[in-house]
């Protein structure tokens, strides 16, 4: 079982397909859960403390907006943990914690420079493309076993 990071990091389709094939999908909701359900809420409501942007300094410089560094505090450790990656380029409708384009550029860069097996895809627009999309993911994940 390999740990596979998916981009967009909140994608239902990608994380589901990864888990179906018997691997572990690294998704941002895991990191959010650790903060949101921690017993010692230090900074309600989301428990994002000044420590989070500091953790983000590992991935982005101090003059980078704190929003990018805060997001990287959640996504960065997932990238470090990843043994493979599936990236869907330009989904066009990212929101919430995945809604910052500068963070997304940095995430894609860090995934690519990490040197793990990587699958680049585009979301399908018809049935034929969907079959190719699923087949490519299956083949990629089977090769990781």
């Amino acid at each position, binding site marked *: 079982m390999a740990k596979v990071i998916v981009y967009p990091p909140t994608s239902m389709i990608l*994380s589901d397909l990864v*888990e179906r094939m018997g691997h572990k*999908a690294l998704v941002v909701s895991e*990191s*959010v859960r650790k903060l949101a359900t921690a017993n010692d809420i230090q900074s309600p409501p989301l428990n994002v403390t000044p420590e989070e942007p500091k953790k983000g300094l590992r991935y982005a410089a101090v003059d980078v907006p704190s929003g990018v560094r805060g997001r990287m505090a959640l996504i960065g450790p997932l990238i470090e943990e990843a043994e493979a990656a599936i990236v869907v380029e330009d989904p066009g409708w*990212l*929101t919430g914690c995945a809604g910052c384009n500068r963070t997304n550029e940095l995430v894609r860069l860090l995934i690519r420079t990490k040197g793990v097996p990587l699958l680049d895809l585009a979301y399908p627009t018809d049935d034929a493309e969907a079959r190719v999309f*699923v087949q490519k993911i299956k083949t990629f994940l089977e090769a990781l076993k």
Partner: protein
Amino acid sequence: MRITKYVITSSESDILPSDIAMKIYGSKYDVNVKETCFGVVVNGEEEVINALIEEIRSLDPAGIFIKDRGFPPGDPRRCRGRRGGGARPGFYMIEAEAKMLPMISRALAATGEVPAVPEKKKPLMPNKLEDIIKEGLI
């Protein structure tokens, strides 16, 4: 550790969110369930949830999708009932991907060789356009 998962049904699936909720109510598992328009949200101990979602997925393996969620169901920080209405931030992603679920379901259920997809036409590059304009002027 308690975890939360979304169980989302494809719009073409014969399984309704209410069917999934009823299956969970009738199961032996001690979990919290919230039924939504697109599926259900289940919350409980990690081992229990993992066993439960495998049972739920077996209802329609190609038409039921699972997604992890950070906040527990009905959490006042995310629940729109407590925030004065409007979709919660994560819904837009689910909504956008849900439109693709029927295609993905059909692809998962399909057997046999995958047909080749013709390459899409790429937009005209500016230098090519310039060449065409120059040719037209000469």
